[in-house]
């Protein structure tokens, strides 16, 4: 029964913590960045993912690649060559485990951010009001060149599992520089982006993966 659901929470060592309170900040840079995000039609980038987990002595570092096309098509690849691919082209979200030759197919409307996949969407929100509806802004620091803000999803389960998500971007170009997800147990998943190309043509097959020979499972 339900005990089976709590295992994930248990394993994360989750405990309820008091919500952090944001000091009064100027959210202008965030508003501007969200407005810039609306102008993105396509995006391609490389990234380096660093996982610092409490249960592992050493961090795990993996390179990756990302493609996005508005509205709602994306592809994340982790590893070179890719070991895990998450792809969507308007339909279901497919999580492809290359070595195991397995595919899990999810209905995007039923995706559980704490269980299935973290937030992978671009843009994060259409505007600041939509952003506030989905996320609680915990902190924001800005210099003339860079801006870093911390947020927490309003989704109760996600908020219980996470301590914060910290996003850093370039104020001039609007380019995403990094985002860091910190779990309640202190584990951290960091993505640093490089070689970001905005509104450039993407390969025709960017959002298609040949699944011949793969076992496909539709997740409920």
């Amino acid at each position: 029964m339900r005990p089976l659901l709590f295992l994930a929470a248990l394993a994360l060592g989750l405990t309820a913590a008091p919500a952090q309170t944001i000091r009064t900040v100027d959210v202008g840079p965030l508003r501007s960045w969200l407005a810039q995000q609306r102008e993105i039609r396509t995006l391609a980038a490389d990234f380096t993912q660093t996982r610092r987990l409490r249960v592992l002595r050493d961090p795990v570092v993996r390179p990756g690649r990302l493609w996005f096309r508005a509205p709602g098509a994306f592809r994340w690849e982790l590893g070179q060559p890719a070991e895990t691919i998450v792809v969507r082209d308007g339909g279901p979200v497919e999580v492809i485990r290359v070595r195991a030759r397995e595919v899990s197919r999810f209905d995007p409307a039923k995706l559980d951010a704490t269980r299935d996949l973290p937030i992978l969407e671009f843009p994060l929100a259409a505007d600041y009001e939509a952003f506030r509806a989905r996320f609680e802004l915990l902190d924001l620091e800005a210099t003339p060149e860079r801006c870093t803000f911390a947020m927490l999803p309003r989704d109760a389960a996600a908020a219980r599992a996470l301590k914060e998500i910290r996003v850093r971007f370039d104020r001039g170009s609007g380019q995403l520089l990094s985002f860091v997800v910190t779990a309640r147990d202190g584990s951290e998943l960091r993505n640093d982006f490089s070689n970001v190309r905005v509104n450039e043509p993407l390969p025709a097959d960017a959002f298609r993966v040949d699944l011949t020979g793969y076992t496909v499972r539709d997740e409920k």
Partner: protein
Amino acid sequence: MKSRLLVALALLGLAALVAVGLTRIRFDVDILKLLPRDLPQVDGLALFLERFARPNELIVTLESAEAGETAAAAEAVAKMLRARPDLAARVVDAPPWEQASGDAAELVAYLVLNQPPARVDALLARLAPDAASATAAAAVERLANSLSPQDIALAGYDPFGLSADLLADGGAAREFGSEFASRDGMFRVIYVEAPALGEGYRGRVDWVAAVRAAARTAVGAKPVKVGITGEPAFVADISGTMEWDMKSSAFVTLAVIAGLFWVTYRRVRPLAVLLALLGATFVISLGLAGLLLSELTMIGVGFASILIGLSVDYGYLVHQKSRQGAASLAELRRDAFRNVAWTAGTTAAAFFALNLSRLPGLSQLGNLVGIGVVVGAAVMLLVFTPIAWRWRTPEPPPRVPFDRLARPGAWVTGLLVIVLAGVLVVKGPPGMDFSAESLRPRVSEAYTALDRLAARLGSDPALLNLVVSGGEEAETLARLQRAEAALRAAQAAGDVRSFQSALPLWPDEAAQRANLPRLAALAAEAPRLEQTLAEAGFTTEAFVFTRAVVTRWAEWGARPLPIWPQGEAARWILRRVAQTGPDGSAALGLVHPVPGREDAVVARVQGPGTWLVSWAQLGRELARTVPGELARLALGLGVVVALILFAAFRNVRELLVLGLTMALVFVALAGAMSLFGLTWNLFNLAAVLLLLGTGIDYSLLLLLALHRNGGDVRAAQAQVGLLILLCAASAVAGFGTIGWANHRGLASLGITCALGLALDALISLFLLPVLWRRIRPGAASRSR
């Protein structure tokens, strides 16, 4: 002297019986007591409520537009209740396993222990010296490459995958949501366990009110809505309104009767005596009924006003007869007896006939009113008749000029019937609603909060509850296994979308006996397993959970089987899904059927000690069984009434007059219901029976008067017209006042009967003579 002594003794005996009966009466808020227990859905739901309804657990809900505000309010309410041991023995506002990870390890240890031995074989193979390193390496691989937060968490804290098979089983859990908070965090739930509560519903009402007040105080002026639900809240809500319904409807009916009597007769002393006798009739009837039944259902409380509204008819009749030239008290008694015996006989027969219905709620109402009608008739004949004779006054000129009213009355009533028949043709007959809606109270904060809770926590009303019961734990286990197999087959056949049974949680002694020695032996291998993880790159933290689980297995090695987990987390989960006790054991599960395939799933899974139940499924079952049964009952009663009337009149044409009159009444009633948007439900369908038994009295009175007056319609109308109007007005008041009852079914029964009786009186008084003239044109001359 001797006879007076006997009467006094008899009265004392009656008073003693009534007193005993009255002390036995209790309010019973269980809506399933209103329904036939032989229906599988009712049986299964009753067991479900009996075992899993949590009679001492209150659910406090909090909701606002801001997740943070709701969380703060929930924290404040929980803190306040924890500080009040007089209000709460236990307060739970978050899953117990989040607060005590040791309890969670115990639960996982139990679930693995309870698995089929083949699965434990696979687990032990993963942990064997030659495979443990590969298992740990695979976990590292997942930690490096997986994008699923759940997968990363499990690979990190359960690297040997002790819980892997359990999660695979729990795939369907995704659909069944959280018990404590909505996904957006704007809605939160706190479970409050009662301290020791006294007997009776008053203690619960006070406790619920105190918890509500404390919660509202804790929330303060913040814009957070507080709701209270759970079994004690239902008991408090429904019991309170039942008492109010009974008192208020009886009081208003008495007031209406007093008003009618005063307007008609302007006599104080007979009115005072009549009201006192109606009160006595009610008390005696309730006392006598109390000897036969101890619990008054939500439908039963409607009897007070119905009984008063009907019993007063006999008082009117006696009073009217006393003014219409009876030569002596004996003649008055004879004349009154003839009339009262016929009308009370058919009325009581109709109400007692409700016993033939399989709805126990209606049967109880029928018995209460049937007993009351007989008591009322006896009280009026034995007590009121000599009083009315002593205080008789000559009949004044009629206040209602029936000689001038007959023709326009016939036209207006005829027009009304035509209009209502037209409505019936245009709008169609009233709809049928056999959902559980008619079982619910109209106003109940507990229901409102429960509806909100179900909506916000994602509970699907289409879900079916799998209820499995047995004597010993082994019997329930066997039934759970059979149900699981049937559900898998139903899933394969496309009838079931997903399901979760209590099978993984139910102790399987055979499996435990096979698994425990091997699992307990793992404790000795803990150092090797920890070392394997360290070599794969894990920190010591990664082994905490595994160590807690294997330690638990080692502890259990010395305990007798079957093993039940004892920790807070396990007890919290088991309280809702597994119950054992001296009177047997029961388990609960959830089934998500494919829409439209519910009946097929129920047919496939239901068996001895196994039910698939829901309120929606109950509605479907009732819709299949009850209307046909009530139709057969109405037909039977109709035949009985027809035979009684044939014995009385020995004339088919007069029977035809009565039959056509009743037909017009039913057509007009159906039209009126369509017009006002009323629907037939489980309870107001009984109005058909009651109109057959009670409504026919008015026709009967007029027909008897036509006989007495040699077929002179105006003379007959002048003689009994006022009486019929008075009786009908009182009965309409009696039924009409339960129209505001909180129980929807009872209220609909009251409104339907009030409408039907009003139409019946008009049609009997003004249209029956028209039919009588056409069908029996020679009757007047023969009667003369």
